[in-house]
């Protein structure tokens, strides 16, 4: 009774005590055969991975059966290869025979079978890595190379031909990360070329049977390549000398052709060309003659004429007189820097490199050119003045058109060309106006063509009342721009402004008054942009010129505008000149004096005031 009681108690304890503790026992989990490997095709080993043991001590057993035999055998050796392994020795291994292997895990509660695995030993051969790897530097030739040699793993029997191994080498410099692979086939020796002088190399080798897996890499063998730089040095020396020689030849050739290259890279900028402009006359500063030559018969151009001709750059001297030719020739001779320019009456041909324009003697020569041109232009203008009835009206309207212009103006041709209303000019007035124009134009000559200067037209007579606030705003606008950018290195920026303004002006069209015939001075910008020739009266004249009311005692210009003094404009002149005439010698005072002097002339002249005066010569 007690015994049975004890037994039941014991049984209860055994069964329920673990439950009471909270642990569960279960049959073992399914083991899995991970891999089987043979190092020499004579023996092989299989390893498995145990599943969960279910909390109880579990035992593992490996069973196999050979091909075409139902006999099941158990693993002969569980120890040799370590934990969870089975080692088949030579007697138990048959090559070219299919093995069916299963692992069984057993514990107190049950057992579980792994999935069976079919293997044929010949296909699972993974040899040991090759042994006795030696690397030597062979320096028989001028360029050393590495000779790598090794031996097959001692276990693999290649001598009898039982196993055939192929080898693979990998090399790299010590500091690099990428290996260079070489397949060596069945040979046990290999040469490596293209070594870096003084480099440290690491070499490894591995092997594989014809049917099987690659072995592990052998331990790396290190080798240092000796320096053979002296060999390379001679070659480099030769190369350097040769290249230096070629370089010298090239520089010499370049030097020979320097001029033509210069012209190719930096083509000379054509200067402004004005019909009938006589450089030599202008040089001598003889006012009357200068402008007389400038007067062209068909100036101002009619509506049918080509607008592009009116651009300074496009003007050609089409009636070259003898005098002009001679003078232009003289000019060219005198101008040292003007090489390669053809001698003709075209005033613009005397220009050379654009760089020299502002700085060199050629600049002075150009001035003379400009003078000449202006002279001829002035004479032309003179002739045409009578024909310009109602021009003033036109200009007035033009002025009113653009009240909010806030920039400089574009001067596409000298102020002299601007059509003037029929002012009855005294000859003296003419003279002075021409002179003024000349001076004005001189200033222009120091700018690249097309630079902006402000022009103030001065329709003296009837237009006064018509010209209104528009003028003032022009000038104020220009003044503002000047104040804002007083130190512009060149006048191109002003020009840019004026370009914009011109176009803006263009947009704001005002239907011209009846009888307006100032289409000749339509906006050049518009024409050149390929648009239809919009008959737009105004433009340059309207913007370029402001009417001078008069000159006061202090030699200050009084420009016409409603209720404002012209002093501001005076300032404008000065500042503008400052910005544009850096290369020439001008002081503010001088300029003012010049302006004043000019101002005296202005009133009597045909009404144009040139604000940008550069000619520092006193005007007689």
């Amino acid at each position, binding site marked *: 009774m007690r015994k049975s009681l004890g037994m039941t108690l014991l049984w209860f304890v055994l069964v329920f005590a673990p439950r009471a503790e909270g642990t569960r026992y279960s049959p073992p989990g399914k083991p899995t055969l991970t891999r089987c490997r043979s190092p020499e*095709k*004579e023996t092989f080993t299989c390893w498995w991975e145990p599943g969960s043991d279910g909390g109880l001590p579990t035992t593992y057993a490996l069973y196999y059966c050979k*091909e*075409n035999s139902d006999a099941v055998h158990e693993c002969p050796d569980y120890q040799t290869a370590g934990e969870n392994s089975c080692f088949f020795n*030579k007697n138990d*291994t*048959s*090559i*070219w*025979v*299919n093995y*069916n292997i299963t692992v069984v895990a057993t514990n107190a509660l049950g057992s579980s079978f792994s*999935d*069976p*695995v*079919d293997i*044929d030993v*010949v296909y699972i051969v993974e040899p040991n890595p090759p042994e006795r790897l030696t690397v030597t530097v062979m320096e028989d030739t001028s360029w050393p190379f590495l000779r790598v040699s090794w031996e097959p793993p001692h276990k693999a*029997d*290649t*001598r*009898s*031909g*039982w196993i*055939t191994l192929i080898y693979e080498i990998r090399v790299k410099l010590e500091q690099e990360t990428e290996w260079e692979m070489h397949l060596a086939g*069945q040979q046990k020796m290999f040469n490596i070329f293209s070594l870096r002088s003084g480099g440290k190399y690491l070499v490894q080798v591995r092997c594989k049977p*014809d*049917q099987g897996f690659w072995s592990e890499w052998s331990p790396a063998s290190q080798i240092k390549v000796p320096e053979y730089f002296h060999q390379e040095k001679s070659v480099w020396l030769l190369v350097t000398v040769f290249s230096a020689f070629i370089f010298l030849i090239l520089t010499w050739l370049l030097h020979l052709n320097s001029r033509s290259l210069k012209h190719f890279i930096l083509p000379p900028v054509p200067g402004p060309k004005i019909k009938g402009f006589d450089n030599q006359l202008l040089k001598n500063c003889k006012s009357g003659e200068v402008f007389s030559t400038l007067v062209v018969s068909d100036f101002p151009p009619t509506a049918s004429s080509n607008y592009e001709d009116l651009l300074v750059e496009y003007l050609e001297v089409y009636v070259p007189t003898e005098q002009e030719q001679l003078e232009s020739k003289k000019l060219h001779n005198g101008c040292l820097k003007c090489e390669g320019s053809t001698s003709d009456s075209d005033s613009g041909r005397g220009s050379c490199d654009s760089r020299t324009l502002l700085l060199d003697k050629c600049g002075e020569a150009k001035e003379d050119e400009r003078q000449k041109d202006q002279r001829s232009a002035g004479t032309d203008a003179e002739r045409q003045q009578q024909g310009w009835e109602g021009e003033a009206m036109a200009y007035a309207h033009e002025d009113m058109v653009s009240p909010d212009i806030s920039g400089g103006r574009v001067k596409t041709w000298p102020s002299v060309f601007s059509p003037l209303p029929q002012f009855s000019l005294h000859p003296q007035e003419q003279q002075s106006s021409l002179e003024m124009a000349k001076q004005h134009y001189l200033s222009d000559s120091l700018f690249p063509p097309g630079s902006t200067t402000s022009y103030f037209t001065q329709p003296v007579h009837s237009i006064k009342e018509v010209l209104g606030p528009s003028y003032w705003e022009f000038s104020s606008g220009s003044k503002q721009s000047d104040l804002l950018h007083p130190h512009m290195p060149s006048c191109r920026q002003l020009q840019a402004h004026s370009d914009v303004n011109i176009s803006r002006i263009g947009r704001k069209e005002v239907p011209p008054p009846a009888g307006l015939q100032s289409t000749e001075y339509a906006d050049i910008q518009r024409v050149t942009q390929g648009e239809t020739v919009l008959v737009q009266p105004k433009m340059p004249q309207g913007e370029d010129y402001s009417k001078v009311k008069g000159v006061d005692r202090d030699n200050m210009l009084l420009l016409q505008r409603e209720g404002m003094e012209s002093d501001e404009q005076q300032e404008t002149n000065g500042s503008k000149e400052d910005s544009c005439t850096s290369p020439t010698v001008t002081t503010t005072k001088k300029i003012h004096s010049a302006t004043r002097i000019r101002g005296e002339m202005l009133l009597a002249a045909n009404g144009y005031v040139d604000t940008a005066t550069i000619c520092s010569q006193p005007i007689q």
Partner: protein
Amino acid sequence: MKELKEKTINHLSALSIVWVVLVCILFCSRLTSVGAASICTNSQAGCHVITLANLFDRVIQHSAKIQSFTNYLHSEFEQYFLPGKNQIGRVSRNCHTSTILTPNGKENAQSMAREELTEVILKLLLAWRDPLWQFHQSMAHHHDFNNFSSNKALEMSDMVHELRKGVEKVSEKMQKLGIISNSIRRLASPETSVQNDSEQHLMKDYDLLYCFRRDSNKVQNYLMILKCRIVPEYGC
């Protein structure tokens, strides 16, 4: 003038013809001389004699080629037609060459006499002559297998035939050299015969490939053993 021109033209043409003929004769003579030299028997003087080592190398190369072919075909079959590997159902594989006694271990192979080994090789190669031909036929009929494999099957059949011829030559050479005795029987027909089962063509083909792959490996191995035993110059 005209006559003169004609005369010159005639002369030139004649000359050119003669020249062409000469060139042809020269070339032809060269070719014939080369052709004449290609056929070579042992007794002829000036013949380049092939050594036994060379023969062995050629034969082993040929066998290696066959083996690579077989591997490729086998892997293709496995990949496309039989995804499940290590199926229990395939354990009962019975290669038709299992009746041929072949050494299954290194000791067995090394302890075998050269003549026996050579005989085993020849037996194996002969045993595969017909099955491979049948295999090629079945390949051609199965349009689901690509043409490349079908061509390879045909090639394999030819190659095995050639290899057998080569091994025969090697054995002849060895006999001539006295390395092996003349006890090798000339095999005319294979000892084993294969029944043409119609059921489960694909399975049969796969088993066939498996068996052949193994047997080609055997042949290769035996040849290497022979070579390293008889002419161990290099590669052993």
